[in-house]
């Protein structure tokens, strides 16, 4: 095969396959996706009164004792910055890891000094994406007393709310049980007034 025909082959095959896989394929997939799964394909947006207030899949930062807190987030320059997702990437021996955990522990303890239960590990560790929308049911239950107190609700009611918002393993087997922090907090707000007024 001559060099000429080799290069012609390469050019033409490349161009045509680029058209197919780089243009037709994503366009067609977008068309089908938008037709079949418009909600999912566009970021599972939460829309309230015509305003986008988040995504069910993307976590938001919470620091108020009246809200459930999510995972630590290592995104910069602020936590849960979904324009720059990132993990902490701290090695197991890195003192910064202990420092971050200690800071979270201090915050938890100052918001709820009476709680001496062991703190679930996911509350003191940063998620991989920095956008984790979930915490473990254990982490949610750990925070029930504090949230109930801050909102003047009975712990029982809050616990029930947590249980309602606990997703089991998908199809009964896949993944881990988890609680969507944003949805849980929105449900809290629907129950009592937003705590912003109290602050």
């Amino acid at each position, binding site marked *: 095969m001559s060099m000429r025909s*080799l290069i*012609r*082959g390469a*050019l033409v*095959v490349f161009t045509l*396959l*680029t058209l*197919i*896989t*780089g243009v037709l*394929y*994503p366009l067609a*997939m*977008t068309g089908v*996706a*938008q037709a*079949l799964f418009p909600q*999912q*394909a*566009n*970021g599972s947006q*939460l829309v309230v009164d015509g305003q*986008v*207030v*988040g*995504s069910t899949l*993307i976590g*938001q930062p919470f620091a108020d004792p009246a*809200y459930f807190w999510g995972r630590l987030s290592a995104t910069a*320059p602020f936590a*849960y910055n*979904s324009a*720059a*997702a990132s*993990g902490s*990437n*701290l*090695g*197991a*021996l890195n003192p910064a*890891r202990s420092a971050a955990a200690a800071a979270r522990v201090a915050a938890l*303890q100052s918001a709820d000094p009476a709680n001496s*239960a*062991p*703190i*679930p*590990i*996911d509350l*003191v560790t*940063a998620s*991989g*994406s920095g956008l*984790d929308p979930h915490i*473990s*049911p254990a982490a949610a239950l750990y925070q029930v007393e504090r949230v109930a107190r801050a909102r003047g609700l009975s712990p029982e009611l809050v616990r029930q709310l947590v249980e309602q918002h606990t997703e089991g393993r998908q199809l009964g*087997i*896949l*993944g*881990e*049980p988890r609680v969507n922090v944003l949805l849980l907090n929105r449900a809290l707000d629907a129950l009592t007034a937003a705590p912003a007024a109290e602050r």
Partner: protein
Amino acid sequence: MQWQSYTQLALYLGLLLVCVKPLGAYMARVYSDQPFGLDRLLAPVERGIYRLAGVERKAEMGWKTYAGAVLVFNLLGLLVVYLLQRIQQWLPLNPAQLPAVTADSAFNTAISFASNTNWQGYSGETSLSYLTQMAGLGVQNFLSAATGMAVLVALIRGLSRQSVRTLGNFWVDLTRSTLYILLPLACVVTLLLVSQGVVQSFDPYQSATLLQPTTSSDGTPVTQQVLPLGPAASQIAIKQLGTNGGGFFGVNSAHPFENPTPLSNLVEMLAILLIPAALCYTFGVMVGDRRQGWAVLAAMTLIFVAFMALSVAAEQQAPPLESGAPLATAATPLQAGGNMEGKETRFGIANSALWATATTAASNGSVNSMHDAYTPLGGMVPMVLMQLGEVVYGGVGSGLYGMLTFAIIAVFVAGLMVGRTPEYLGKKIETFEMKMAALIILIPCVTVLLATALAVSTDAGRATVANPGPHGFSEILYAASSAGNNNGSAFAGLGANTPFYNMLLGLAMLSARYWLIVPTLALAGALVRKQRVPTGAGTLPTHTPLFVGLLIGVVLIVGALTFIPALALGPIVEQLML
């Protein structure tokens, strides 16, 4: 660990192995030019491509022509990806109005995607336009995978044919891999992923109001959150299927928009190993002895299971944190426990560790958790899997052709031990074959060691290390192992988007890919000319458990012996210091 975790691991392996036979048989038909159904639908497209390209469908190539076509085609792809990045600001489909990528980063990314490595020095959502992602990276996701498959098929033909000189036609193998295997599978996976919440949209990034406003580190209040969109699902489907691994978003499949649910996670994990595993069966069919394919698959699977178990066990142990309070780290029905740093709640320990094993067993490199934050032992698992040469399933095509090279080495030593000059599948392994096999084993090892040495010896290399102590060394070693074996996975702490690392790792990826493809094709070219020696009681059987064990031994020993000293200074000592 909860019983559900074990069940999920078993379910994953079970599903994978169930898919091997049907998909493997299908691919064998595609490559052997037998009818397989889809050809009736897409044949006009295929014929059209050949007509326009002036490709003679039946004209076969010798190994040199085949290699020439591979190289020219890949060079072209590399140039196009480079150019797209450099001029994306003037091109359409750039709603975020991202500027041109810097020259060194574009160089690195172009090599990375052409070589099926998909190392990402950049962060997708902050540096690449939709067009660059689609027409540049997305296309290479298909074509680099198809290149690997074509080279593998050429090697298989080298083993299955006898006394001829040609290995097939690269254009045909490439086109058929793309049209009939990658594309249909990618369509199915895309839709499954979208149904779970993976985004697939050309809309610009969406802004959302935070429920509780927060403040930036510089003190400015933040009330809005950006929801990044884009044609992600279609690219994620092929990045997994083609063992590319380059995420649409910077944090890859840890990102909730890239991998939102445990089910999407299962689909993506299956997609990682699906084709590499099934190709083993294809290999068995094409060489006329399915047992050979099963044996290779068994060797891969056993190594995989062992590493998976190690990874899961290591990650279930939370490293000690001096946080000033007792922590609950055990697995209970209410939490996954373990080392949750860098892991997503929905995946927990089992699915994170399993992914880490699968993505580095295959040369995929996508992540759903941050390997940098793993326990030292847990982080060593993906590192070693890469250092083994990406042959435990490995990259599509490249994994199996690497494993077959190991089989040739295993056969060589074992063949001697049974008192015959060695042969694999009836082909005598002689001086030339040994030279090529040695090169294939040697190049990645040397590349990784040299790249690591260079990085630890220069200020530029040390400057962007994120972690102190031995972990910093692990970060560099991991990056070099990833680039030098075309994996693309990262200990993400290392700041790799610097001119130094972009150049160093770019060159490592280049040598690991093409310095292996050429000897592999040369090997195929030498084998195809040989006669097949009939097997008998005196020939070393290569489908028995004993041979599987031997193959595993050779893979582990070559990998382990090379990297034990380096690993001792990184993850091993780190684990001992815990």
